[in-house]
């Protein structure tokens, strides 16, 4: 696969504040990559550096293998979809989409044809002469996309493009975006703090925090094998249980770990930890099973008491007191059942437990 975009050692500070502390990224042809992180993690600045709006203090942006640092935005082969669209309010739909073509002084006929083509692509035929403020939020979003497609960029940059839409619309725009991206085979970079959006559309996710890449990988990697506590907590929810290694059992391939819940068996490589090492055991709330006596026979079972049961429709969210810990437990709602109450048993499946070292 060709590398379309490569970032090498990108650093940026605003005044005394370091925003990006050395970013190295390689994005392949046709890939949908996402920068995800909390606000202030530097993801938008990184995107603006790629677009050419911000100059990095050090490091190089390579587009198609060429150093693009000195190329201004208007000459760069990237197209940005801004938050809220940044559609020109004084121009019609057609003139918004045509803006880049007109700047290039394309003949009128070709501009009109291209605009019609782009409007068809985003399913907005017939809105050419509409004023921008007469469009719905979703329609504005599509116009912004069409405008970004107009110059056939090598890389499409999306800066939280759906943050102003309501939840349902966001979902359908997300699907449409993914469809269009696949169809055009367009290398795309999305910036978002929304994990659902990132997980559902991306080929690869870069989790950013405090100006550094915390983890990169497929949505499955990120969710199921978080590289550290930050990623684990930012993507989904996770229970963290502090514990101490007691022994390694070679036949089952499991460590025996003493925790506040009692002894737990957790899989791991035999040479990762020595007995007595301080560790953290992570377990996602939805991986824990909750039930009555029937769970007792399973491995890693602990007794607990339901503190709160929150019925949210699609699932029931429990806070369960077990030993000295409070565990979050999410259970898909099977329907017609009543939430558990009082004393319960929790099963922590072997395959769902993650083990990490801890400085005690």
């Amino acid at each position, binding site marked *: 696969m060709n590398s379309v975009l490569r970032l090498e050692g990108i650093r940026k500070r*605003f005044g005394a504040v370091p925003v990006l502390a050395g970013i190295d990224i390689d994005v392949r042809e046709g890939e949908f990559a996402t920068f995800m992180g909390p606000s202030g993690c530097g993801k938008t600045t990184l995107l603006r550096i790629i*677009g050419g*709006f*911000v*100059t990095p203090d050090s490091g190089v942006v390579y587009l198609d293998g060429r150093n693009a640092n000195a190329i*201004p*935005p*208007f*000459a*760069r082969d*990237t*197209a*940005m979809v*801004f*938050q*809220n669209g*940044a*559609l*020109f*309010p*004084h121009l019609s739909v057609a003139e918004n989409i045509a*803006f*880049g073509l007109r*700047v*290039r002084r394309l003949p009128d006929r070709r501009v009109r044809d291209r605009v019609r083509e782009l409007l068809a692509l985003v399913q907005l035929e017939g809105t050419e002469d509409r004023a921008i403020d007469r469009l719905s939020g979703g329609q504005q979003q599509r116009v912004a996309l069409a*405008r970004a497609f*107009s*110059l056939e960029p090598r890389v499409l940059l999306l800066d939280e493009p759906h943050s102003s839409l309501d939840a349902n619309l966001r979902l359908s725009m997300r699907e449409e975006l993914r469809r269009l991206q696949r169809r055009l085979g367009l290398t795309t970079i999305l910036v978002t703090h929304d994990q659902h959006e990132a997980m559902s559309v991306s080929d690869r996710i870069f989790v950013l925090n405090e100006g550094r890449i915390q983890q990169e990988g497929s949505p499955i990697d990120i969710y199921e094998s978080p590289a550290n506590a930050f990623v684990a907590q930012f993507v989904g929810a996770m229970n963290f249980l502090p514990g101490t290694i007691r022994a390694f059992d070679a036949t089952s391939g499991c460590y025996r770990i003493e925790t506040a819940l009692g002894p737990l068996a957790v899989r791991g490589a035999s040479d990762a930890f020595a007995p007595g090492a301080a560790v953290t055991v992570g377990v996602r709330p939805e991986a824990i099973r909750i039930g009555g006596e029937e769970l007792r026979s399973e491995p890693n079972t602990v007794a607990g008491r339901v503190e709160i049961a929150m019925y949210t429709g699609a699932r029931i969210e429990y806070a369960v007191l077990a030993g000295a810990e409070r565990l979050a437990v999410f259970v898909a709602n099977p329907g017609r059942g009543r939430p558990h109450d009082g004393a319960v048993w929790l099963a922590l499946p072997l395959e769902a437990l993650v083990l990490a070292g801890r400085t005690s």
Partner: protein
Amino acid sequence: MGSLAAVAFALLVVFVAAPIVLVLAKGFLAADGTLTLAHYRRFLDSPRHLASIRNSLLLGLATTLLLTIIGFAFAFALTRGPRRLRTPLRGIALLPLIAPHYIFGISLIILGGRQGIVTQALGLESWTVYGWSGVILSQVLSFLPIAVIMIENVLRGLDSHLEDAARDLGAREIEVLRRVTLPLCAPGLLKAALLVFSLSIADFANPALLGANLSFLAPNAYQIIMGEMNMALGSVPCALLVLPCAAVFLIHHSWLKDKSFTTVGGRPVGTEPRPIPPLLNALILALCGVVAALIVANFAVTAFGAVTVLAGVDNSLTLRHFLNREGVAALLTSLKVSLLVGLISTVAGNGLAYVLVRGRMIGRGTIEFLALAGFALPGTVLGIGYLMAFNAPPLPLTNGLAILVLVTVFHVLAVPLELGCSRLVQIAPDLEEAAADLGAGAWVAYRRIILPLMAASFLNGFVYAFLYSMVSVSAPILLISPGRILASVYIFQMADLGLLGTACAVTVAMIGCVLLGFGALHVLDGARRRLWRGA
């Protein structure tokens, strides 16, 4: 609250509507009380009077055109230009705010008058600053702060992502400016231009000082009323002065009302200075540099004029211009009047705002309209109206300070009123409901919740009213009585008599007072913040 609104309405009718109606009516009434167009015919038949109409329009157009360009250049430099230059440029552009706006009328005479410093240095025989060049230049410098503030707000309100998007789509900076920035700013620019136009037409002092043998509407009206004592004929230029103001006012409040592409709370995305093309950058900075140098030079000359016997002619240092009993008395009177104006208009404006906004009064539109009318009307017209309305019973007020306070209060009331209204609209009514829910009565809720949140609005309203009152000349000059002269009027009269040293000294003293006042307010404001935070 209804009765309060009724009182406000009655006062506005008596002190804004009635004087104006009187002025306008006078021009259509013959001595025997019958309707006539004779006064208008007489005015239009006189070449000198006719010229004053043409000259005022030309002046308005020239000043507006120049100021729109210069104001945009400053605003552009202040929002997108080199970071290091922004603070000094803004400081110089806003400097004229602390002085009477006709300070340039005085300093330009010292620089470019018949015995002016520049005139002599260059050995100019035929050219002086009197006439078109002087009037236009003095107006451009006088009204620069207004233009810069308004246009800078427009540029700041522009979503910078729009300009980024244009660049991203292949537009170079000059095309971004032409295709995106300027079209988006057009409604805001038009608003600023209209305001400058109405200020220029209504300006009395600069054309009066520098106009030489050119006649302009406002000085002309003053001359007819005070010189010829011809109220009926004087009504005609007043009507002609009201006309453009009314037109501008109506355009502002109907046609342009919703025409804005910029938002007030536009994100300040200014972390990276924009790469302005070098030529444009040089052009803009050169223009700003020249204008800034002119402002500084004029202020310096005023200070110089205050401490020399006769600047340009006898440059020996002296303090005698400051040792002037009349000037000191005028300054004290000004301070007294301006403090009263500041207090009354701030309390009345904000109180009225509360009644109108929270009481959802039906007459809100009318009351705001009357207050804004008082603000938009040329001071000369308002002054003549007061002269006609309050020179005789039932309300004989012309012989005292009260009328000076009143005319200025009703001239500036719209500013604290609008500041108060726009602030109140931002304060959610549930705050008061929450206070009431917690057991606070209406007065306690106002004092403990609303008042602290409105503090900035009070302060800004007071500063504006006080400043305006200190420097306004066009209305008070018609209403002063012997022995009760205001510093602003005194400065103008001294300058008009050619006593430039005295005019400069009182101007410098006035600027000193204003700066001292600001310092005191700053300290007070700091104390207030600490107090409320502690409470």
